């Protein structure tokens, strides 16, 4: 009698555990499928960079070939586009990282008149559709009679990257121990020395992370650039043009190399941070 009661009481617990186990397996399976979805196009991109090409488009597998990897710039205009993209990314990253870090420092360190307005102005670009950002900037340049080209691309990239830098640096600064600054000043350092010798080294990983993000976003930007590029052709614009005419496997090679170098860069920065810690 007593054992039966105990068994009856245990049964729902067992069912519960079974349900929990099943639910757990289901979540794991679902996550695995989601990752397959995420990596399917990447696998296709890498695979088709080795495709032996017949005709203009790279849709059908014709057999293995190393041609595209051996001659990555054998396509007219591709090299110039890649160089332009890297130049734009480098310049706009430096400017946006500097300006964005200053804003983040002001927002984290000080309470001042116009604080929430500043916060808002930084966040609005992030929630504005890219097409509106690009189109509105074009109307400004048209209104002022400014020819679009290299400079306007850089201006646009700095504009959308400032907000990303502010958000990233702010997130990293939140747990920062500001009493370290006071300690430095108590020990006789002036404001500038304190910033250079104490604050900057401590917040540097956050700034580096923001700069990497800005660089990646600049390199990848298509929509805003399309509106403000004039005659210039960045790498994404080159791909856009190619998509209508002919897609050589060299484009896949570039995509694979961009992803590979990002992974290498991130691994490197992780390694550096670990060594310093």
């Amino acid at each position, binding site marked *: 009698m007593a054992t039966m009661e105990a068994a009856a009481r245990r049964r729902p617990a067992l069912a519960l555990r079974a349900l929990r186990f099943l*639910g*757990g397996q289901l*979540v*794991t399976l*679902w*996550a695995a499928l*989601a*990752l397959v*979805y*995420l990596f*399917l*196009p*990447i696998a*296709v*991109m890498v695979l*088709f960079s080795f495709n032996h090409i017949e005709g203009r488009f790279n*849709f*059908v*597998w014709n057999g293995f070939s190393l041609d595209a990897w051996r001659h990555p710039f054998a396509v007219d205009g591709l090299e110039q586009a890649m160089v332009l993209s890297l130049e734009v990314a480098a310049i706009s990253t430096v400017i946006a990282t500097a*300006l964005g870090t*200053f*804003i983040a*420092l*002001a927002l984290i360190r000080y309470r001042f008149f116009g604080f929430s307005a500043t916060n808002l*102005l930084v966040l609005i*670009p992030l*929630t504005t*559709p*890219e*097409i*509106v*950002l690009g*189109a*509105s900037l*074009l*109307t*400004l340049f048209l*209104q002022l009679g400014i020819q679009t080209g290299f400079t306007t691309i850089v201006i*646009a990239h700095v*504009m959308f990257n*400032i907000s990303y830098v502010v958000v990233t640096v702010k997130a990293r600064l939140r747990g920062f121990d500001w009493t370290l600054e006071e300690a430095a000043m108590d020990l006789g350092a002036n404001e500038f020395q304190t910033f250079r010798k104490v604050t900057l080294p401590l917040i540097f990983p956050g700034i580096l992370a923001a700069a990497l993000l800005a660089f*990646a976003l600049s390199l*990848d930007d*298509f*929509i805003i650039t*399309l*509106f403000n590029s004039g005659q210039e052709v960045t*790498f*994404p614009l080159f*791909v856009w043009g190619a*998509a209508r005419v002919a*897609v050589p496997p060299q*484009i896949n090679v*570039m*995509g694979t190399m*961009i*992803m590979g170098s*990002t*992974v290498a860069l*991130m691994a490197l920065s992780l390694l550096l941070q670990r060594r310093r810690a």
Partner: protein
Amino acid sequence: MGFGRLRALIPYILLAPGMAWLLIFFVAPMVTLAQSSLEEGVFETGFRFTWHWQNFTDSVDRFQEQFIRSFRYAGFATVLAFIIGYPLAYFIAWRAGRFKNYFLFLVVLPFFTTYLIRTLAWQTILSDEGEAVRAMRDSGVMDVLDTLHIAQNGRLLATPTAVVTAITYNLLPFMVLPIYVSLERIDKRLVEAAHDLYGGPIRAFLRVVFPLSLPGVFAGTLLTFIPAAGDFVNAALLGSPNTTMIGNVIQSRFLVLLDYPSAAALSFILMAAILIAVGLYARLLGTEEIT
């Protein structure tokens, strides 16, 4: 004393260059966009500012279909990204253990390649001569998809399915990452408490975990929906004239037809429509819970 006054100026000195940049290249363009949307004329003879409100009414009349389609696709993509992304974020936050960061890295890794190349890869996957489509055609799966209106005439490319699939794909991390952050913050002991109080796993999830993850869901849906509604890349590369979104219209009016006033008016209507949609959504979810 002089130094004290200088100190009060420090935040403004820090802000000045960045804020100036945003004021000149983000706020001022909104003004010129507004101005342009009320102009009249054609490119060849120039545009004049005449408070031409008709640009707005005309645009709504002519491109209603594309507006509705954009919001429908963006809505579908957002819901799909949520269905795919929530369990993934949950898995990483609660079950991945010490591999958490590696899984997060896997989620963002595909997005370190160029947006357009990712989208072109979908063109390859879904193309008529591709292995996937051929297999589906041979096995009869395509007929089922045809009757379900997922495929059209045995094709996946150039259908709404292709466009929505790629939009969902391209925006998935924007859904996963905020949900992950809010799930990660939840105190795991709360769930144990729910179990101790004899809440089953489903009830514990629905009444404890899910409500606490709502801020992440809110941020994730906005970060997915807004870019999706304004996108034109996916529709241009994977769609057909029947899947034209409002982004495609704005892009071609601005850059191909050079009809700046109507393109500017359309941009404003898009922004306003998105704001209204977001406002309604915030109302629906209950604003108190999202802060």
